[in-house]
């Protein structure tokens, strides 16, 4: 892997209401495959993603394709191909499925073929209000919105949160396919999903990076997963 990382995060710090949430987070996102951002609840994973996207005031450096992006407005970053699927999906409950997708179109020829191939269900539910969908279906809408456009990096925050096991598998399958075309920075708690998708892993703990390396290496080390993530077999 001699290619340049697509995203270089260096010394990223966030202070909110007097507390230091991120304290110099540093890691790279490889130009292909899935980089998993791991850590316990409250460690600062979501904050990291939101700081990269310019949703939170941050200091340090974030280089995207070699250019500094910290401080640029969110919508510009997204237009430059930095797509975001937030925690809790951010689906517009009062809008229909079709409207949710239409809103996300950024290019003249959005890739509805791909979306309908991956999520055939969305075509049949086009006129349904997104708020009445199940959690899994809402997650599909959230991912589909992103896939309509050409992207250069996907930031995905806990896509399997609160989903039934079968749906988790379906979401993981979709993400595996997506990761074949575009690099993904994935926040995920379900380690089986991480094992299946991730090539690299970054573990955040109390606002700092506690571990970096190959995902498999981390997951095979029972002691490390337990001490870093607090989960694992006894």
């Amino acid at each position, binding site marked *: 892997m001699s290619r340049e990382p697509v995203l270089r995060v260096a010394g990223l710090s966030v202070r909110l209401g007097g507390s230091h949430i991120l304290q110099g987070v540093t890691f790279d996102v490889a130009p292909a495959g899935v980089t998993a951002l791991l850590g316990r609840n409250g460690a600062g994973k979501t904050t990291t993603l939101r700081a990269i*996207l310019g*949703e939170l005031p941050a200091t340090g450096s974030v280089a995207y394709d070699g250019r500094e992006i910290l401080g640029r*407005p969110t*919508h510009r970053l*997204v237009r430059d191909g930095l797509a975001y699927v937030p925690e809790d999906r*951010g689906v*517009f409950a009062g809008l229909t499925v079709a*409207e949710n997708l239409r*809103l996300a179109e950024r290019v003249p020829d959005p890739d509805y073929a791909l979306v309908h191939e991956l999520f055939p269900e969305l075509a049949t539910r086009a006129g349904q209000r997104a708020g009445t969908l199940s959690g899994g279906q809402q997650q599909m809408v959230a991912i589909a919105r992103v896939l309509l456009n050409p992207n250069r990096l996907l930031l995905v925050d806990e896509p399997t949160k609160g989903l039934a096991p079968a749906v988790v598998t379906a979401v993981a399958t979709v993400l595996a396919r997506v990761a074949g075309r575009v690099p993904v920075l994935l926040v995920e708690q379900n380690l089986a999903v991480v094992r299946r998708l991730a090539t690299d892993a970054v573990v955040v703990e109390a606002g700092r990076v506690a571990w970096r390396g190959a995902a498999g290496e981390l997951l095979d080390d029972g002691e490390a997963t337990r001490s870093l993530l607090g989960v694992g077999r006894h």
Partner: protein
Amino acid sequence: MSTVVLLTLTGLGLAALYFLIASGLSLVFGLAGVLNFAHGLFLSVGAYVTWWAAPHLGLPLAVVSGVAAAAATGALTELVLIRPLYTRHTEQVLVTVGLSLAGVALLQSVWGADARVFPRPEWASHVTGVLGAQVPDDRFLLIGAAVLVLVALLAFLRFTRYGLVIRAGVENRAMVRALGIDVRTAFTLVFAIGGALAGLAGILGGMYFTSVSPGQGVSLLIFAFIVVVIGGLGSVTGSAVAAAGVGLLQQFVNYYGAAGAGDVSVVALLAVVLLLRPAGIAGKAVAA
């Protein structure tokens, strides 16, 4: 019977004014999170520009310029005063308070504190017989304008890209941004739309009351606030329903009750709605 018809149409005429003011306020609040006290100023700007331009341009063009001036005031307010304060909502409210005080005083210094006779089309002074009641035609003007605006607004929200952005933004601003859309453009747009509607309300109000004064906007604004709270913040349909309810109640109680009872009853209605449904009729959660 004829009294009931007259009161109903007059009440709906008043409701039309409330709706025009409230729908803009409600959209601005729903999308940008700003309680806009300067909304009453937009109304006065529309009315005064029309009053001033009518002798020079004729009434139809004067109305257009009044609405345009109010829309421009709205857009400018957003660009110059609201936008730099970003997410500091309390400060944004405070700035609109200051603007409203200063703006009304400015109008007063230019055109004086006294009420001015407002121009109206010839036919608006006629009456039409409806079910035995002699109804002044200006009622139909108000109601017709409000219905047109309601339909146009709903169509705009439903069928246009900006409408989609606004509806989505009312639900979740941050997510709209995260889809690569510059939601601030939509903010400016709703301020302009709100300004235009308020300006129209000011003009129609001027025709209805046959006069215009600098403080007129503020007193109408307060009933519009009530309509917005009852209707639910961010909901155009809610505003329409609540405006009709408030206008009718006010007229009927004012006629059959003591002087001022109508205004009191409207506030009583507000209290009842709040006790039963704190988020309003169609509202998303108000406390946030």
